[in-house]
């Protein structure tokens, strides 16, 4: 039986986000909250593994009380235990403080119910795009991490080895890891399941366990929230696309020449 931990985050639905043109800040008012789409992939993968290998899914999230709705959604993916880390003292956390808060909670859960085999995180949260929390937790738990997991190949429960594909800048890496391992989940890894009716009913009424700064986890106060966050945001801007494309004007260059040029270019890059 697999013991799976999934860590999720509720985020503003950035497809709905608007920027205040005068102040340049995000207008958050009236923006619906959703579960971070990469975390949905993590939940979907957990669900797939549970259905095929058997197991137990524990889901945690850190956030304000309304993040409860994301945990309820997790129940539709077959989550057996849901935990909300919520406290004003957690607020304002950067990736350092967040991974501390989550990792300590996970350690607490392991002491309580035994170690997890798999830790699943989203590749990144769409409201911050840092992709640092998953690896940050892995370091604190001292487990190996595979980021940007895009495909699952095999899982050998006897040997405790999982084989997955990881997307890197140079292509796809096929990796094997011994459990326990932490994966950050990327597009393609798993599709959301069609949840059964009884789970839909269960999810509506599901109440998460609440963890605060005061318990049951023993936190070092100075490492929490804004106090524990050394990150300083100096400026927010839209990054420029660095790699410039080559533009060929078809009105001045004959088509045949353009095609030849493109083929040459692809050959020189080793793509063809």
């Amino acid at each position, binding site marked *: 039986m697999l013991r799976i931990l999934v860590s999720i985050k509720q985020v503003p639905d950035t497809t709905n986000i608007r920027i205040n043109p005068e102040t340049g800040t995000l207008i958050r*008012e009236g923006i619906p909250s959703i579960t971070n789409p990469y975390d949905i992939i993590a939940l979907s993968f957990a*669900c797939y593994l549970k*259905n095929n290998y058997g197991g137990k899914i524990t889901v945690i999230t850190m956030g304000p009380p309304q993040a409860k709705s994301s945990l309820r959604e997790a129940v539709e993916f077959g989550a057996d235990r849901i935990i909300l880390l919520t406290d004003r003292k957690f607020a304002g956390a950067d990736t350092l403080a967040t991974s501390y808060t989550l990792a300590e909670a996970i350690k607490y859960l392991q002491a309580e119910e035994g170690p997890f085999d798999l830790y699943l995180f989203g590749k990144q949260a769409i409201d911050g795009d840092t992709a640092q929390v998953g690896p940050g937790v892995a370091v604190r738990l001292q487990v190996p991490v595979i980021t940007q997991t895009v495909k699952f190949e095999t899982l050998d429960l006897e040997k405790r080895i999982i084989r997955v594909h990881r997307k890197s800048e140079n292509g796809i890496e096929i990796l094997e890891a011994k459990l326990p391992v932490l994966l950050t989940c990327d597009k393609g890894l798993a599709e959301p*399941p069609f949840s*059964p*009716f009884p789970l*839909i009913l269960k999810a*509506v009424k599901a109440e998460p366990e609440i963890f605060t700064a005061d318990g049951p986890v023993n936190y070092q106060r100075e490492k929490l929230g804004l106090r524990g966050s050394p990150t300083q945001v100096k400026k927010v801007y839209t990054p420029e696309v660095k790699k410039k494309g080559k533009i060929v004007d078809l009105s001045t260059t004959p088509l045949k020449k353009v095609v030849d040029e493109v083929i040459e270019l692809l050959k020189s890059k080793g793509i063809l």
Partner: protein
Amino acid sequence: MEELKFDVVIVGGGPAGLSCGITLAKAGIRALLIERGRFCGAKNLFGGVVYTKSVKELVPEFPNVEPSPVERPVTEEGYYIVSSEGLVKLLHRKKDPHEAFTATRARFDSFLAEYALKLGLEIAPKTKVLDLLKEGQRIKGVIVDRPRAFGDPRPTEIPANIVVIAEGVNRVLTEKAGLIGRPFGAEDVALAVKEIIQLPKGALEARLGLAEGQGLAVEIIGDITACLPGTGFIYTNRNHLSFGLGLFLSNLRESAFKPYELLERAKNHPHLRELFKDGEILEYGAHLIPEWGLEGLPRLYGDGVLVVGDSAGLVNPLFREGTNLAIYSGIMAGKTIIEAFEKGDFSSRTLKAYEAQLRESFIYQDLITLKKLKKHLFTNIHLFKTYPELLYDTISLFFSAQGRPKREVMREIFELIRKKRGFLGIVGDLIKVGRALW
């Protein structure tokens, strides 16, 4: 796995279904409400103005609730009558500012759903009812799209003693239950198109002359619909306003206009344009409103089944009643079901009490009135073209009468009226409307 069996299954989490569910939950009846939207209210659209009295029947402590679904109380209500040349405003300050309020469906329906959940109603969102379980003519439950377990291809059957159909205007299940005499045609439904428009900070109050805690609900008649039978509406929410048009599908089809073109045209009406200036559209939607009235009324009950709200066609467009009728019908159905459980009989013999209650109520009487009105009013093109123009021109003449003999002005006005509609025509129209209303 726990057994899926309920006393009552309610299909649809709009105001009708939720009201029935709340009534049942209060009586301790084990009811399940199934809604295909992501949550109750997610899929729905409306103006909308809600009447406090109907909500109080469900939630006695309303409007003192937290979080409240109230956007703004309606403190001012009335009509804008527009011609292509100008605008006449007929507004009144309401005696009781708490009588009506504006709300959005997403927040109003989910407010009722939260309330219902606390009372013990089971709610299953994201689930669609595909069909009814039947035993001969008797309805024995529903079939939903979701399976019982992951990977199981079979839909789930959920047995129940009574099924309440609250599926709204698209009466798929009502038809499957065999309760519909005839399907509705284009003349039986209105199409409402609507936008929620966010105005720059403070503009809503400034442009409509409102203070904090004041709200406006106006219907707009005349050139706003390109003189097609129908109306426009403006309702103020807390930070944005709802603007839309309601038109008969049949007229719309005959006209050259597409619904969104008409809405664009209306928004750019020279005398309303300033209101929407620099506005940002937060939401756009279209939805049908049942207008089949008495003729299209389905049978409202059968063995093991009841029909409530829009599915039944309980809407009074003239007085902007839909939500409240949905609520009342839901409550009446709930009361009938409680009786059925006391008797242990779920056949039409007991359930017909629901129709009897409806017939005795104002809802049914209004449907009769509406039927007559519809015949005379909604087909009377003068109401949407001639009268709005006449009214504006008359008032405009009257207020530009300075420096002239007033008798001459009056004569001009009479001449105008005679030319445009004729006194006999006007008297005839008045009699028709009068007859329908009395």
